[in-house]
């Protein structure tokens, strides 16, 4: 058990990676064994992440030096800077890792039934596991170049999954678009890494942060990093690839791909807070992030109102909801230099943004899965051609209701709790922000009311009279995400205090992040 705790940071990446290498070999022999193996490895991953999370919550930041004589030996004894590759896990890392592992498990279980009609299932599960590897790797690493490598794993597997249904030209084009965008973003990130390496001869985030002189080059690097990671997360200046890529993605992977976007968002927060942090005046950056957030909210929801394709509509809400997260964290970033303001509302703003990240991963993922469930049974995504499915697909209807009420911020659901935190905090900074956020929330409710009416209420259309409920595995997949949503809704204060505030504090406490690697205080 001690060994498990000790090695858990690297096991959380190595387990899905090992599984991805074994899956093609098992898949050639037996499809059922392969499905069981994939699910088992994701359950094991979930277990390891929980072990890791409990340890981090109890004992603070964990470091893991790969290949050293001891995992905690970050700097060689006769030297001043870290040489080996170091994993560093803090509150934010475990929060995102828990979210990613849960969503990946739900998506994989859902896929068992939903991918059955397709060929190439071995490849599908390999790609799904590698997408999970990419997410876990980005969250748990403490090294910038390593972040680049895992970002590429995430991008390539994401692009391949988006193009999985190769018989649709949309899918192939969406995958191509995503691959170009993410390759360029990753190269910008690599440029920034090279700028750091050229100046400080270091690749470790904490070591660079420790040595940083805040030169012009560092500011250029910040611009490159922010551009790259905002592009990957799909916030407004570069939101145009999101709908084309996510809409044709195969059923079970939609929530996982969404979680991978959120992962890039968290990586952006990591870079801005832990790499640059309080010593650089970040108010301008904070306001830029707030602007991006407000624009994302507004553009996303207005585009969503015009859609008649159910999945495309939900994907536009993805952009809109990312706006809330950027707004919350941006408010915290704008006041980071002022300790009083941070204590008064900045900390709450960051926590609200992060809480919204995990809430969204669950209820938005649930909504995407219900959209896919309708496609699976009806063969269409067009809202105008659906109707009255509430009677035939009771479970799907119930899951959809949970997700829709949560995303619209209806009390007592978790979407309401996190939005409330963001409203309160942003009101202190500027009341206009709160008003815009409230308007967007109302528009979201309107949009989902439309979907509910056209898809589920009313008498069933004659051509869909014999439609049945979706198979068991899809119900279980949706059920996991629905349970997570309901549990967070029932115990919001426990979740916020136990999980979310440690993550927000880890972001604010840059000195702690640096000293975990560099030693001293």
């Amino acid at each position, binding site marked *: 058990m001690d060994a498990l705790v000790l090695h858990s940071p690297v096991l959380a990446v190595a387990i899905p990676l090992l599984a991805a290498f074994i899956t093609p070999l098992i898949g050639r022999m037996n499809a059922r064994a392969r499905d069981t193996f994939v699910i088992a490895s994701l359950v094991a991953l979930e277990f390891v992440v929980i072990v890791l999370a409990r340890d981090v919550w109890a004992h603070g930041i964990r470091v893991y030096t790969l290949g050293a004589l001891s995992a905690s030996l970050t700097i060689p004894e006769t030297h001043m800077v870290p040489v080996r590759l170091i994993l560093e896990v803090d509150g934010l890392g475990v929060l995102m890792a828990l979210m990613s592992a849960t969503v990946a498990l739900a998506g994989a279980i859902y896929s068992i039934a939903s991918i059955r009609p397709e060929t190439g299932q071995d490849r599908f599960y390999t790609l799904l596991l590698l997408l999970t590897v990419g997410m876990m790797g980005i969250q748990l690493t403490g090294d910038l*170049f390593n972040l680049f490598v895992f970002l590429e794993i995430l991008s390539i597997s994401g692009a391949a999954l988006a*193009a999985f249904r190769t018989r649709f030209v*949309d899918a*192939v084009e969406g995958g191509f678009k995503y691959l*170009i965008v993410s*390759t360029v973003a990753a190269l910008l990130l690599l440029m920034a890494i090279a700028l750091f390496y*050229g100046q400080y001869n270091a690749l470790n985030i904490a070591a660079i942060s420790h040595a940083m002189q805040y030169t012009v080059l560092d500011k250029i690097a910040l611009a490159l990093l922010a551009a790259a990671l905002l592009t990957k997360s799909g916030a407004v200046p570069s939101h145009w690839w999101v709908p084309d890529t996510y809409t044709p993605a195969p059923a079970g992977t939609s929530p996982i791909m969404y979680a991978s976007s959120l992962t890039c968002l968290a990586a952006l927060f990591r870079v801005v807070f832990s790499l640059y942090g309080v010593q650089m005046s970040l108010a301008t950056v904070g306001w830029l992030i707030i602007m991006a957030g407000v624009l994302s909210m507004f553009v996303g929801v207005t585009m969503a109102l015009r859609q008649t394709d159910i999945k495309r509509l939900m994907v536009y809400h993805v952009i809109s909801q990312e706006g809330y997260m950027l707004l919350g964290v941006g408010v915290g970033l704008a006041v980071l230099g002022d300790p009083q303001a941070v204590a008064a509302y900045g900390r709450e703003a960051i926590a609200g943004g992060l809480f919204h990240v995990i809430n969204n991963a669950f209820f938005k993922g649930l909504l995407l899965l219900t959209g896919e469930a309708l496609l699976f049974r009806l063969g269409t995504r067009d809202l105008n051609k659906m109707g009255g499915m509430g009677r035939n697909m009771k479970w799907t209807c119930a899951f959809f209701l949970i997700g829709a009420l949560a995303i619209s911020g209806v009390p007592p659901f978790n979407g309401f709790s996190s939005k409330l935190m963001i409203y309160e905090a942003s009101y202190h900074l500027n009341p206009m922000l709160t008003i815009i956020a409230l308007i967007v929330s109302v528009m979201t409710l309107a949009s989902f009311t439309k979907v509910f009416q056209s898809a589920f209420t009313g008498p069933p259309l004659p051509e869909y009279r014999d439609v049945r409920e979706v198979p068991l595995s899809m119900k279980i997949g949706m059920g996991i995400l629905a349970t997570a949503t309901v549990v967070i809704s029932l115990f919001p204060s426990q979740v916020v205090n136990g999980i979310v505030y440690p993550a927000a504090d880890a972001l604010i406490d840059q000195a702690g992040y640096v000293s975990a690697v560099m030693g001293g205080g």
Partner: protein
Amino acid sequence: MSLILQNMPFLAVAALICVSLYIMMTQRNLIKIVMGVTIFQSAVNLFLVALGYRSDGVAPVFTSGPVELMVLPVPQALTLTSIVIGVSTTALMLSLIILIYRHTGETDAEKSRRVKG
């Protein structure tokens, strides 16, 4: 002026990046866009290798010869990683273009509907 001459390799990197971004923004043929991305990759690789160069350094391999000043080893390892990743993404991009061509008979971004890099 001497600075410009001395940092010529870095300036070459900047020039290559500008060329590649120009290609990616103005060209409509998908294969040309991929070429732009590839030039960008080469520019970044060149930058990484140039960062690690020490004047009069030799390759960081210990042989039976005398130990001299060596160039930095880490950028070479990073470049190796970056090259392999570049090959993989390029292969996948070209495969996707083959599929787009099968579907639409076009490799032009605007004629084949919504693709716009």
